C-alpha cells in the first residue's frame, strides 16, 4: 500500500491504470484537466496511450474506437464537455462497447463558474444521449479515495454489462487534496473490495443476443470474428435493420441487462435510519460529506435525523426510500434534481424537501438550521432567497 497526499484526479488515474485502462482520450477542461495530465505522464509507462483530441466529441469517439479495438479506455471531462459526449454515448450504448467516462461536475449551465463544484448533471448522466430505450450505470464518489475505488468498479461493470459507465464526481472531489491509499498487491486490492474483469472477445455469430444476460463478451474488431457494430438498430448478428420488432429486442437488452442485474451495481451508505428517524437527509458526492457531519451533530443533540447516501446513482435506488417520513435532498444546485427521484420513490404520505446551492458547500450550521425548521414544520426559507420555498 502506498499513501499519498494527492488530488482526486490523481486517485482516479491510479484506479484507471490499475483496472487496465491503456488508452485515454481527452480534451482539457477545468476541473478534469489534471486527469488528462496525469494520464499523459503515467500511461506511457505501462504501454498505454494518451491522446488529446480536437474536441470532447472526438475524445469519447476515439476512446470508443480504442475500446472496440480491444483496449480498456477512458475519457474525462466536465459539464460543457459532457454535453459533447452525447453523440458517442449513444454509439457506445447501442453498440454495447465498454468504456469509462468521468464527469467532474462544475457550476452550469454552459461555462458557468469553471472552477467551482456543482451537481447539475444528475439527469444528464442518466440520459447522456438521445433516443431513450436504455438504462445507464452511474457511480458517485464522495472522496478522492472512493473516486479511485469507483473508477476501478466502473471498468469492472463496463465489461460485465458491455456499456459505458459514468463516474459522476464534482470539482471538490477531483481537485481536493486528500489522504489516499493506493493498494499494490492483489490481497490489498481484494481487501479494499476492488473487482477486476479482463476484456473478452465476442467471436459471434450473434453479437447482439436479445437477452438480459450480462457477461456476454463485447464486439472487438480486428480479431477475426467478422464482427458487426453500427449506429443503427441491429439484428442479432449486427446487421442494420429498420423493424420495430428488432428494435424492441435491442431495447429490451439495453434496458433489462441493467434493470435485472441492479444487485451487481447497487451500493449505498446509510446512517441512523433504523429507529424511525423524523428526517432522512439524502445526499451524494461532496455534499454528503457536510450532510454526514451535520447529521452526526444533530444526533449528538438528540434529534432523530438519519441519512442515505446513494453511491450508485443510476439505476436510482428506489428501494432505499421505503420509510414513510420526511426527506431532505441536499444538492449542489438550485433547481433540485435528485429530489424529484426521491419524490417518486418514497411511500405516499412522505414529505420531500430540497436544500441546494452550488459553487460552495452548505455549512453544517446551514443544515442545522434546516433540520430545525423541518422538525418544527416551518417553511424552508433562507435569508435573501425567501421566494424559493421547498
Amino acid at each position, binding site marked *: 500500500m502506498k499513501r499519498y497526499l494527492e488530488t482526486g484526479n490523481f486517485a482516479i488515474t491510479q484506479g484507471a491504470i490499475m483496472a487496465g485502462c491503456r488508452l485515454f482520450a481527452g480534451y482539457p477542461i477545468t476541473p478534469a484537466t489534471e486527469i488528462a495530465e496525469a494520464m499523459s505522464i503515467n500511461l506511457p509507462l505501462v504501454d498505454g496511450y494518451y491522446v488529446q483530441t480536437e474536441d470532447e466529441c472526438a475524445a469519447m469517439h476515439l476512446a470508443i474506437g480504442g475500446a472496440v479495438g480491444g483496449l480498456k479506455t477512458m475519457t474525462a471531462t466536465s459539464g460543457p464537455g459532457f454535453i459533447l459526449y452525447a*453523440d458517442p454515448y449513444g454509439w457506445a450504448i447501442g453498440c454495447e462497447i465498454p468504456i469509462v467516462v468521468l464527469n467532474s461536475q462544475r457550476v452550469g449551465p454552459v461555462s458557468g463558474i469553471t472552477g467551482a463544484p456543482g451537481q447539475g448533471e444528475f439527469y444528464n448522466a442518466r440520459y447522456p444521449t438521445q433516443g431513450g430505450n436504455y438504462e445507464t450505470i452511474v457511480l458517485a464518489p464522495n472522496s478522492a479515495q472512493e473516486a479511485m475505488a469507483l473508477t476501478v468498479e466502473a471498468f469492472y461493470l463496463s465489461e460485465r454489462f458491455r456499456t459505458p459507465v459514468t463516474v459522476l464526481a464534482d470539482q471538490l472531489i477531483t481537485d481536493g487534496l486528500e489522504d489516499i491509499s493506493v493498494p499494490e498487491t492483489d490481497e490489498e486490492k481484494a481487501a479494499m473490495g476492488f473487482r477486476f474483469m479482463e476484456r473478452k472477445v465476442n467471436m459471434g455469430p450473434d453479437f447482439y443476443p436479445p437477452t438480459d444476460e450480462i457477461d456476454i463478451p463485447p464486439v472487438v474488431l480486428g480479431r477475426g470474428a467478422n464482427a458487426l457494430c453500427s449506429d443503427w438498430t441491429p439484428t442479432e448478428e449486427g446487421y*442494420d435493420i429498420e423493424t420495430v420488432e428488432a428494435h424492441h429486442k435491442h431495447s429490451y437488452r439495453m434496458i433489462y441487462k441493467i434493470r435485472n442485474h441492479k444487485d451487481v451495481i447497487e451500493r449505498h451508505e446509510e446512517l441512523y435510519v433504523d429507529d424511525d428517524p423524523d428526517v432522512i437527509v439524502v445526499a451524494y458526492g461532496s455534499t454528503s460529506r457536510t450532510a454526514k457531519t451535520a447529521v452526526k451533530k444533530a444526533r449528538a443533540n438528540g434529534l432523530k435525523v438519519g441519512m442515505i447516501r446513494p453511491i450508485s446513482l443510476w439505476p436510482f435506488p428506489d428501494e432505499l426510500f421505503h420509510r414513510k417520513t420526511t426527506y431532505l435532498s441536499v444538492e449542489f444546485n438550485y433547481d433540485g434534481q435528485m429530489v424529484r427521484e426521491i419524490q417518486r420513490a418514497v411511500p405516499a404520505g412522505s414529505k420531500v424537501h430540497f436544500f441546494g446551492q452550488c459553487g460552495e458547500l452548505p455549512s453544517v450550521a446551514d443544515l442545522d438550521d434546516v433540520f430545525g425548521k423541518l422538525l418544527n414544520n416551518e417553511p424552508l426559507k433562507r435569508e435573501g432567497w425567501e421566494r424559493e420555498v421547498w
Partner: protein
Amino acid sequence: MDRLTTKFLRERKIPSTACSGCGLGQSHKAAVKALDELGYGVDDVVWGTSIGCAGRQTFATWKGDNFAGTHGRVYAIARGLRIALPPEKKLVLTVGDGDAFGIGLNHLMHAARSNCDMTVVVCDNLGYQSTGGQFGWTTPDGVKTDSSPYGMWEPNWISKEMDVMKVLEAAGATFLARHLSMDGRILVDSIKKAINNNGFSLVHTVFPCTTNFAKNALGSRNAVNIFNWIKAHAAPLGEEKEDTIWRTGIYHDASNSRPEFATSLREKTAQIQRRNE
C-alpha cells in the same frame, strides 16, 4: 455474383438496397477491387462506414469486420481503432460527402493532421440524398435541390479556388485524389496508391444519384442522363474546360513521407519507457 463479390462481400447485403441506377456500387467495387489486386484478404481489413447513402449501403458488406459510426465522427473512431489494431490491418472507410466535408470535416482534418493510417473513400452524391435531396458542400453551383430551390448559390468546396483537397493537403493528408465512380481502372489504381500509403489517404469519388439529385438538378431520373451529365462536366487535372466542375486525378501524393500517427505513438511510448529505465 462475380468473383469479387463471392470472395469479399456478404451475400446477405448484395445486391444492396440502393436505388436503381445508383453509381455508389462503382465506387464501392473499386475499393474492393483495389484491395483484391493488392493481395489483401477478408481478415486483413476492418471496414468502416458512416451514415447516409454511402454508409448505409456499404455497411456490413465486407465479409470481415465492419463498423458504422455516428454522423461525421467515424474519423475519430478510426483513430482510436488504429491505436488498438495491429499495424498491418488495413482500415478502409466508405463515407459520404456530407459526412466527410460537412459534419465530420474537423475530425477528418485532425485525422489528416496526425497522418493516421486509413483510406477514406468519399462516395459523393453531391448533397444530402438519403434525407430527400438537400444541397451539400459539393453541390455544383446553380443546381436546384430541395433546400436550394432557386439554385445553389452558397460557395462549395469543389471550386478550383476553394477546393477541399487544398484544405486537406494543408491539414497534412499524404495522399489525395478525385475521380468519378465510372473512372474504372484509373480509380482502382488511385485507391491502390491510397491503401499503400502508411498514413492518411482520401479518394474523393463523385457518383451519380439517379433519384433525388438527378430529379432535382436535371428534371429526370433517367440514369443515362445523370451519368452523361457528370461525365460531361469532368476533366483530368490540367485539361479543364470552361464548364468543368470536377477536375480528376491525383491531387497530392506524399505517400509514406511523414510519420504515421499510431506508429509514432508506439515509438514515443517506447522512448519514454527507455528514458525511465
